[in-house]
């Protein structure tokens, strides 16, 4: 099964590869979003600590 046949997917290339592409996007989203959220939370907490440290 050489590469060209592989990507042709017996004529259903569009359907198969969009499903797999979408799967990759959905899985990636579920990894990236928590990372961004965590960084935002950490930054907010750090700022809060600096604020309390300055006022304390």
């Amino acid at each position, binding site marked *: 099964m050489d590469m060209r046949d592989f990507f042709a997917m017996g*004529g259903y290339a569009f359907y*198969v590869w969009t499903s*797999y592409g979408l799967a990759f996007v*959905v899985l990636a989203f579920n990894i990236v979003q928590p990372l961004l959220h965590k960084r935002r939370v950490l930054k907010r907490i*750090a700022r809060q600590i600096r604020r309390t440290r300055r006022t304390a």
Partner: protein
Amino acid sequence: MFMRFFHRMASPPYFYVISGRWLPWLAVICLALILAGLYGGLVEAPADYQQGDSFRIIYIHVPSAWMSLFIYVVMAVAGGIGLIWHIKLAEMVAVSSAPIGASFTFLALVTGSLWGKPMWGTWWVWDGRLTSELILLFLYLGVIALYGAIDDKRRAGRAAAILALVGVVNIPIIHYSVEWWNTLHQGPTVTKFDKPSIHISMLIPLLLMAGGFKLFYLIAVLMRLRSEILERERNSKWVTALVGSEDRRQKTEDRVQESDVDPRRVGP
């Protein structure tokens, strides 16, 4: 021994550290499983005699459909535990699982319609299973919307847990009503949307992918949980200590970068 382990796991700081250590290993195993499943599904498995290569969408559609139901049940059970025994961590597991479940349900829906297009020529078929999947997506969106709408996060978590419990009781009722409704309008002529009778070489990748998706769910929920714990415990000492130390390490790195920047070169 199990109770002691479970009890210590319920305390957020301990859980945060332990999950931090497990995540890399889980990620490696999950990646291995999914790659093996993909290889098996896309390359190894022979084309289906009837559907040709379009059947390979099964390796995404079926595992994510299984996951959507599995995550809802886990969400409801975790919500129930959180409500009855007031375990904050269980409540957070329920709340963190909702978006992941919703994305798997969405994935199952779209891949289902992509799979249906070559077979029936239309993007959407009011087939019993797809319709149940669509309603399950609404149930997920309901839980997410309710959690987002209430400002006090503890109250929001408990309200979302109740909705998840009510939802999980309704899922079998909705599923069988829709199946019964489907037999009314469609009639048995439509080929069963079920998995085609599956040859062993096709089944292995399917199970690999299912295992990979379950592990992926575990990783995703652990990651969301860690940032949720940080957010909810932001006043506690261990978070300030943790963030404080990370903050200082961040500062020392900035100071090191500034000093080795050549003052003559004009910065971007």
